[in-house]
């Protein structure tokens, strides 16, 4: 099938306006090539198409529950999020280049910017980036532009996939990236401090760390500032319902993965990245920014602003090549945050924290070792006395995906990163712990 409305008569009439006998005459500038389609067959109806996707969906042999987090989290999504985001006027619009016919999108993104600034206690943000990892890479590039220095110090307790993305973005450019080994699984503050000399553009950390540990980085941030070094952090937005914010710690650029704010897991995307910074750095910030202004009747209005930094004006000198953002995912995040509201996010964070503390206690009672020395948020590392893979596979055979074994990221063979969200019930935690008890 196709979605073109023309009748044969329309086509004939339009061809005659175009002074051609048939549509194919309009393609005379193209070299004639015979395309031999083997894989793509005949078009099908929507009924057949949907069934085809359903058949594929059924091949995903779903687990009954899981403890997988590691940067992407399974949280409850209020119904209003889907309802608002599937509204056609939001869904089928484009980048708001014409403010008069895009005030809906523009105001929503302005509200999103406000919510993200409030969440992180920082001053300015853009209307979203691709994802958490690329947002961190953009923040690093930003710090290089601001400081005009050439060295980056990155703590190894930052999400290893994000670290890989940062490395990919940097490896074609003349900068030096140094990763600092952790002390066990915790950041080695002394080692990082030792590395912070006046050639360094920024130091990069994550809070809570990839392993779930929460630290107060204020002292190190202050130390860095004395040397003209910027502090760049990645944060988990749900933790900010309860955990000390990047703004409170003096961080210069905070980034994060926005998935957990009302976006489903969806096998990797679409998600969105956020990047928040201090007002002084706004001109170095990539991406679309919505600003408030007045129209000619002195009415409040919203427009895309500071476009002179962007690729469609500055081309190769632009702050970044970013053109598309993740507007709809950002809208979902806004609706999510408004739905939970001031007290809801705090309550949610507290439930997440409390449930993971409960699980920790149960695991300790089983004689297992929790490797985090610090307070954790809703994720922690548990050490087994046998290979983690063995534990993981045994539980997988019971349809439970028991976290992320850390050997996958170069960690110990015996460690598993466990995540608990508000969706996990006490009953399931008790159940998995009694299965473990029988195995140990």
């Amino acid at each position, binding site marked *: 099938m196709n979605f073109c409305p023309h009748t044969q008569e329309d086509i004939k009439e339009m061809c005659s306006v175009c002074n051609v006998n048939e549509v194919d005459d309009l393609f005379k500038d193209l070299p004639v090539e015979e395309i031999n389609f083997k894989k793509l067959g005949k078009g099908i109806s929507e009924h057949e198409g949907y069934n085809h996707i359903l058949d594929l969906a059924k091949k995903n042999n779903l687990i009954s529950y899981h403890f997988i987090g590691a940067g992407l989290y399974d949280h409850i999504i209020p119904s209003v999020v889907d309802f608002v985001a599937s509204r056609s006027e939001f869904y089928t619009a484009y980048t708001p280049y014409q403010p008069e*016919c895009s005030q809906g999108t523009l105001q929503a993104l302005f509200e999103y*910017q406000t919510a993200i600034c409030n969440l992180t206690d920082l001053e300015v943000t853009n209307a979203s980036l691709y994802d958490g990892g690329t947002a961190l890479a953009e923040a690093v590039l930003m710090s290089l532009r601001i400081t005009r220095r050439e060295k980056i110090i990155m703590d190894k307790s930052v999400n290893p996939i994000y670290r890989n993305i940062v490395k990919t973005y940097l490896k074609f450019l003349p900068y030096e990236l140094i990763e600092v080994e952790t002390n066990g699984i915790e950041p080695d503050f002394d080692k990082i401090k030792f590395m912070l000399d006046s050639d360094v553009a920024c130091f990069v950390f994550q809070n809570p760390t990839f392993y779930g540990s929460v630290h107060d980085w204020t002292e190190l941030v202050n130390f860095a500032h004395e040397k003209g070094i910027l502090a760049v952090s990645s944060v988990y937005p749900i933790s900010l319902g309860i955990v000390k914010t990047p703004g409170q710690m003096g961080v210069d650029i905070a980034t994060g993965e926005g998935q957990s704010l009302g976006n489903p897991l969806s096998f990797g995307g679409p998600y969105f990245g956020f990047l928040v910074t201090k007002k002084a750095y706004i001109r170095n910030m990539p991406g679309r920014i919505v600003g408030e202004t007045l129209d000619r009747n002195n009415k409040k209005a919203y427009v895309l602003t500071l476009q002179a930094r962007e690729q469609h004006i500055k081309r190769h000198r632009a702050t970044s090549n970013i053109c598309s953002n993740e507007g709809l995912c950002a809208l979902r995040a806004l609706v999510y945050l408004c739905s939970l509201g001031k007290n809801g996010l705090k309550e949610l964070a507290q439930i997440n924290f409390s449930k993971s503390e409960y699980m920790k206690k149960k695991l300790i009672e089983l004689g297992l070792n929790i490797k985090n020395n610090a307070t954790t948020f809703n994720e922690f590392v548990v050490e087994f006395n046998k290979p983690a893979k063995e534990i993981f596979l045994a539980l997988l055979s019971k349809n439970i995906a028991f976290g992320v074994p850390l050997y996958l990221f170069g960690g110990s063979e015996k460690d598993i990163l466990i995540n608990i969200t508000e969706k996990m019930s006490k009953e399931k935690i008790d159940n998995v712990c009694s299965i473990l008890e029988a195995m140990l």
Partner: protein
Amino acid sequence: MKLIFEESKSGRKSFNLPESDVNLKDFPGELSRSELNLPEVSELDLIRHFINLSRLNFSVDTQFYPLGSCTMKYNPKILEKAANIPEFLNLHPFLSILPDSIDRCKGALELISDFQDILCEITGMDYATINPMAGAHGELTGIMIISSYHKSRNSKRTKVIVPDSSHGTNPASASMVGYEVVTIPSNSEGEMDVDELKKHLDTDVAAVMMTCPNTLGLFEKNIKEISDLAHSVGALMYYDGANLNAIMGKVRPGDLGFDVIHVNVHKTFGTPHGGGGPGAGPVGVKKFLEDFLPIPRVKREGDSLVVVSNSDKSIGHISSFFGNFAVILKAYLYIKLLGTEGIKYSAEMAVLNANYVMNRLKGYLKLPYDRTCMHECVFSLSEMAKKGASALDFAKFLIDRGFHPPTIYFPLIVKEAFMIEPTETESKETLDKFIGAIIDAVKLAEQNPVAFKELPKTTVISRPDETKAAKDLVVKA
């Protein structure tokens, strides 16, 4: 409209969390945050606020949206239904790398693999990745692949060539990979000037980046000569697939000599643009570049699928997992619905619609390159602007007539550019109404150009002060 923050009233709430079934514990005070300011609204407050906001938007589902180079075609609703199937929606991407878990996400991996194969078939490439999350992200990935390839051959190359009609993302992406950008002017036909290109082509050139049809809506007739010239100095050809919808099923970039391609699948195939995103920009490469593709990668090995998470030559991670998977799912289903014939027919109808609009309007507006166009046509309103009605004024006029305006002031090489892309899903009746509105605008421009400055009158705001927005910088409440 009020901001939702201004509608907040202390004590209201919209959402109830399930009560915790474990005892609540206090988070340590010294690690705790300060107060958090988020709106406190009821569910009805929230719904009214956002639904009323949505009503201030133009969109494809409510209005004709001929925004050139953005391909705002209609997206069938079945795609949304398919993307919401729980077995995809709730799937954690880590299942693709956890021990023995690949069976748990087999359907998703099969979809990815199938999509990669079909994309290769349509574009004439050998291997593809779905990881890049937007067109420009695909460009970045593609140029990184090209850079890694040259490095692997110990070939030090410093330059990337782009035509002056290129999307701004092309030079921006090349410079993000550390290349110097060389811009080649267009000739009187609106195509890359081959003689000018020859002057700059040497063994310092890593790649020539082209969009074809280009941003003037014109097919580059010399494209094969250009790719032969580029290859003769060892440079690779990069295809910006933003405009692939004009030629899909008719000719393949891979057959024209391109080595790397990205496709803005949300434009060419089907995903609503969501107020600017999400999109997706899968990248296809010729066989000799396979090893440089980003990880993780879904690959067919005999009868089974594998996920490659480690590879020496790979550029590495460009996104965490498989990019914007749900966008790929929609593009995949869209292609399946269309099939071979539908793909080709859609390109034909997109081109017919653009030529129809162009031919109906060329007696009224100046056409800087009077040739058969592809899926979009570019007029210059410079003569109207001299009389006092600029491209911006024309845009505001159309808003009052209920149309989203075309792209204005792009491409940069056309003065007062007015770039119309009708897309294949619009009917002749809609196009006729739109053409009628532009003819009215031309008449008004001749009779009373000053009247334009009052427009638009039907929208909630009119002609916001963009200079003030940049000068006073209010970017949050």
